[in-house]
């Protein structure tokens, strides 16, 4: 039997090869045939989940509720000490010092990652901004959000914080951060579906031990982090309750 593994489509270009390397490593370690399917957008990935084609997923927090509640997925691990945070930034020449002073009607550039959009809009609410009084420009990547601001096509940008931090210093010099979120409890997680559940413990242990193994370490490096950390059922429930509250 062959399983399907997929990754939240908000991966950065640099991580793409990392996920393929990871998948090869995982197949070797677990003796499973695992096919990695990288979907281009959230819509097509959700369709695959709907149709029960996915067995293992590095999931966006936005999809965690559906995966756990409707599809019987369980949490495995997440990158250690990492969480999904957003940055609200403007052009360095913009005089606005606080979200509070942003005006209704502004043009807002944002990536299509649903968790980033949601958290970003929450950070803008204290400035009396919401989807009814801003003009959203959706971009395929964080770098394009930056470009919208630099070209003055958007006044404000919402970024995934880790992607913002990876922008070149030349670009960052032309931007200014208004808010950096510190939510801490919203994160991507590797989750395991019903067909693989009988191997949950084995796979979990293999992942946790990955950083103790030289080859495993190299694979993690290509993904951009040091080690995996367990996501408990409790922690996942708390994140789902939180996401539900924000989405409902």
């Amino acid at each position, binding site marked *: 039997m062959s399983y399907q593994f997929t990754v939240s489509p908000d991966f950065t270009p640099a991580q793409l090869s990392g996920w393929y390397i990871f998948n090869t490593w995982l197949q070797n370690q677990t003796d499973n045939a695992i096919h990695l399917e990288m979907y281009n957008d959230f819509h097509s990935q959700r369709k695959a989940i709907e149709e029960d084609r996915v067995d293992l997923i590095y999931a966006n927090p936005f999809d965690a509720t559906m995966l756990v509640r409707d599809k019987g997925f369980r949490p495995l691990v997440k990158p250690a000490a990492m969480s999904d945070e957003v940055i609200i930034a403007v052009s360095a020449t913009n005089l606005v010092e606080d979200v*509070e002073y942003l005006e209704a009607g502004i043009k807002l550039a944002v990536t299509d990652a649903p968790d980033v959009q949601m958290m970003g809009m*929450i*950070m803008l*609410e*204290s*400035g009396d901004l919401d989807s009814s009084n801003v003009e959203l420009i959706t971009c395929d990547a964080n770098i394009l959000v930056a470009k919208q601001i630099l070209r003055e096509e958007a006044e404000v940008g919402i970024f995934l914080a880790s992607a913002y931090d990876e922008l070149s210093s030349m670009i960052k010099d032309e931007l200014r951060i208004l808010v950096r979120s510190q*939510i801490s409890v919203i994160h991507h997680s590797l989750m395991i579906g019903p067909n693989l559940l009988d191997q949950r413990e084995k796979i979990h242990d293999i992942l946790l031990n990955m950083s103790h193994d030289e080859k495993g370490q190299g694979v993690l490096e290509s993904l951009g982090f040091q080690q995996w950390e367990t996501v408990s059922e409790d922690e996942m429930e708390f994140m789902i309750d939180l996401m*539900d*509250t*924000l989405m409902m």
Partner: protein
Amino acid sequence: MLHDMKLEDIVGDQYKEVTLDLYGGFTRKIIYTEIETPYPDGKLIVSTTDKQGIITHVNQSFVYMSGFEEEELLGAPHSILRHPDMPPAAFADLWNTVNAGNKWQGFVKNLRKDGGYYWVKATVIPNVRDGEVVGYTSVRRKPSLTKVDECIKLYPTLF
């Protein structure tokens, strides 16, 4: 049950005292000041409760903003944050809304352990598992100043 507030916990020497009647037929002596702690940028304050409104989980921002220790919060009724300037009608509306299975949103002035206060925009939902309510979650975010100003004018009229 909640302990009365203690003078030694209060920051500032300008304070008022009042006794609040809380749900379940008990009262609590409140000592409060006019010192506001501004809502920190970029943070969300999160808590979950059981069906009775007893706190079961709080995040770091909750602990920080409330001024309590985590151990003091877990197991306490959520009215531990009840500020005397909040009209009871707001919480009646909160409970009616979530008991009907819906999401409640509102602006809340919360009381700190040190007698000070902080404004939040709160969202509360019932957590439903297999068709049954097992508890509630609340997430607070930074409120807009315009909305807080409206509430400062409106809430005293609701008593």
